[in-house]
């Protein structure tokens, strides 16, 4: 293993280099920074906090579900827990995760720019995010909300108790933060590329951020207006969605899913981008079918807008609409398939090493495939009638969102950690964490597929006793998972101070971001780079030859 590592010699640091971290150190210099790298770190800290809130809610939920009776918390509390969990995990953790942390940090560097196009708007987006977060936390602390993350009317607008309006306001505001980020990324990708950085030379991570941003910009405003209408209905009895005032509750669902289905691709595309980077780097091979992988991102972003009705197969929408949405849902799976197959093909004849980021990437492919394939079950009309709103759906999306996206996020953090901090994380501890997360994850969520087909509905605080065994397994897995998540939290912090010095390019990866010192200086590049090569000029044979030479 030691011989297999290809880390460059740590560079002796003669004098303290000027980096974006030590350039200025006052608190104000952080809170008022317009440097994309610092904003990325602000986001990193914030979403970690939100992940802990969402994770704490999940922990309590899993504990409650150990027994079929509701003995740990009351029904209302349980309902608030899954609402908090869903809202926080989706809008305050997973949607911002890779785009705002790694996207902010890397996008300008990857295309050879000094910053994003609108640095002040970038900072503003963080404040919007935190403002929205403040509303959400307020509504949690002052009693919570019990509508589920989907806020279906007329329950949310008329019958629910709790601070629905505060929560909706929080999401509304945070949504504008998302829009600002998306707008920034789109313009940055279009206008800030270094000379020679053509579209066909863009790293696939940039492609994925770009397509994600398109969704952010075109879908989020619909969520904003939908939640605003719901809040108005709740506050003033405006009857848009209220059947007793002549409204149609399904209109809310149409509007909500018009946003929320594309939003699931906001949650997976950046992960796919990360995996494309990791697979190539650790297999030392050019990606197989670059153009197809890039085009698949675009296809997912566009087709993703055409399938929202698959969440409404049994909602009493027209059966003909159901059929259209079903066939389109199958079609949106094709670009995902293209990606999976191309990643697999990339491994062929590579020179593969298994550092922690690669473990996460491989985990992503496996778990995303399972999650995606079960999405096909859900897209099949007759089967969805049975499994809709059961734990089958819960398992489906956790496989993609936790097994896929959270893995990709952790993989990306480990991969770019040396760039962000200038330090290496401890490899063995990190591998241990990756493996326990993988094992814990499967133990938590695999049983839920079975539970779902058995018919256990979701959002159930008490359940039929015959479901208990599988639930106990799931809770056991969740404990392992929780421990697995705490490890990186600890050792990454530790390594910031005590980790090995990493040097500019510990992975010997291609990509402009690796041509800068670690951590990078404030303006990233001394001179604007000129790009002549494609993004993945790796050569597995050269790597092998070097390795043999080192041995001899």
């Amino acid at each position, binding site marked *: 293993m030691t011989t297999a590592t290809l880390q460059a010699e740590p560079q002796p640091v003669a004098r303290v280099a000027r980096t974006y971290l030590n350039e200025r150190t006052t608190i104000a210099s952080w809170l008022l920074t317009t440097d994309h790298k610092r904003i990325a770190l602000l986001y990193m800290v914030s979403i970690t906090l939100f992940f802990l809130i969402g994770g704490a809610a999940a922990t309590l939920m899993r504990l409650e579900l150990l027994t079929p009776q509701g003995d740990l918390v009351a029904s209302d509390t349980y309902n608030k827990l899954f609402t908090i969990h869903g809202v926080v995990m989706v809008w305050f953790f997973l949607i911002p995760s890779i785009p705002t942390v790694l996207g902010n940090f890397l996008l300008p560097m990857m295309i050879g720019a000094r910053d994003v196009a609108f640095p002040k708007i970038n900072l503003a987006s963080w404040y919007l995010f935190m403002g929205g977060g403040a509303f959400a936390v307020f509504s949690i602390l002052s009693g919570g909300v019990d509508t589920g993350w989907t806020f279906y009317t007329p329950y949310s607008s008329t019958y629910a108790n709790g601070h629905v309006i505060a929560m909706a306001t929080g999401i509304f505001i945070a949504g504008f933060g998302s829009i600002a980020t998306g707008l920034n990324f789109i313009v940055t990708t279009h206008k800030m590329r270094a000379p020679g950085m053509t579209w066909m030379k863009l790293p696939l991570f940039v492609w994925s951020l770009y397509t994600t941003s398109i969704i952010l910009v075109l879908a989020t405003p619909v969520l904003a*207006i939908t939640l605003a209408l719901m809040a108005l209905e709740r506050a003033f009895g405006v009857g848009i969605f209220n059947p007793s005032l002549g409204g149609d509750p399904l209109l809310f669902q149409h509007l909500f899913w018009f946003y929320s289905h594309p939003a699931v691709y906001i949650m997976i595309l950046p992960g796919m981008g990360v995996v494309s980077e990791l697979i190539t780097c650790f297999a030392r091979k050019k990606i197989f079918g670059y153009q197809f992988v890039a085009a698949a991102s675009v296809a997912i972003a566009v087709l993703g807008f055409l399938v929202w009705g698959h969440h409404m197969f049994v909602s009493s929408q027209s059966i003909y609409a159901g059929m259209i949405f079903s066939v389109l849902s199958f079609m949106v799976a094709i670009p995902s398939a293209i990606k999976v197959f191309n990643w697999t093909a990339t491994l062929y004849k590579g020179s593969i090493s298994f550092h922690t980021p690669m473990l996460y990437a491989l985990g992503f492919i496996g778990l995303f495939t399972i999650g995606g394939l079960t999405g096909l079950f859900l897209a099949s009309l007759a089967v969805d009638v049975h499994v809709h709103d059961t734990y089958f759906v819960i398992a489906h999306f956790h496989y993609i969102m936790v097994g896929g996206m959270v893995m990709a996020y952790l993989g990306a953090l480990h991969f770019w950690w040396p760039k962000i901090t200038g330090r290496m994380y401890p490899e063995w501890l990190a591998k241990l964490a990756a493996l326990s997360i993988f094992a814990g994850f499967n133990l938590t969520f695999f049983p839920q597929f079975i539970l779902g087909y058995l018919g256990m509905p979701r959002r159930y605080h008490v359940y039929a006793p015959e479901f208990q065994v599988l639930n106990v397994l799931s809770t056991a897995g969740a404990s392992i998972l929780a421990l697995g998540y705490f490890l990186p939290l600890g050792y990454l912090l530790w390594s910031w101070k005590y980790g090995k010095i990493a040097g500019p390019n510990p992975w010997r990866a291609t990509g402009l971001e690796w041509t800068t010192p670690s951590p990078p200086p404030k303006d990233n590049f001394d001179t604007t780079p000129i790009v002549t090569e494609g993004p993945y000029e790796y050569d597995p044979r050269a790597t092998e030859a070097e390795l043999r030479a080192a041995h001899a």
Partner: protein
Amino acid sequence: MPEIALAPVEHQFENAEQQREAATMGMWVFLATEALFFGGMFLGYTAYRTYYPEAFAEASRHTLVAFGSINTAVLLISSTVMAFAVRAARMNRRGLLSILLLVTASLGTAFLVIKGFEYAREISEGLLPGPKFHIETSDPVHAEMFFYLYWLMTGVHALHVTIGVALIGFFALRAWLFDAFRDHDTPIDLLGLYWHFVDVVWVFLFPLIYLAGRHS
């Protein structure tokens, strides 16, 4: 709205050309999001109108078509003036620019005042949905739905007009006092785009609200 660059070229850009193109593009992207923001309400309107065409037609007859038409004209003319203002900025004619901006803002204000009179009349006639809502039609439930949508859509639009008027006034002042846009007309360009967009939204609102049931 994309920020207004004070320094000619900010550090992240290579040159002024890149900076201007980035800002213009940012504005267009922003307008696309605005279109979908309004789009949610348009969908609600379309869905209910296809379901309850009679109720919507009858309710629509309770709106004041004269006021609506005048207001449309006011906005169209203000857009024209705005277009001239953008041109004045490009030609570095500070005085003309501030005057044209002021005219645009006044037309915007006129729009709001007229809309305000309309609102006042509708409230007094019981056309504000709520406990006091009252309308002489055969399907009051869905006539009320029309008025929910009416207040929402015109309300959100009026909010946009208000923001526009405030910004235009502020820019007029800056042009007049500091000659802030000499050789630097991008902000005025963007402001113009925003104002024209608000106009386009109204162009669609007008027939949906005022003209839905005029022929019968």
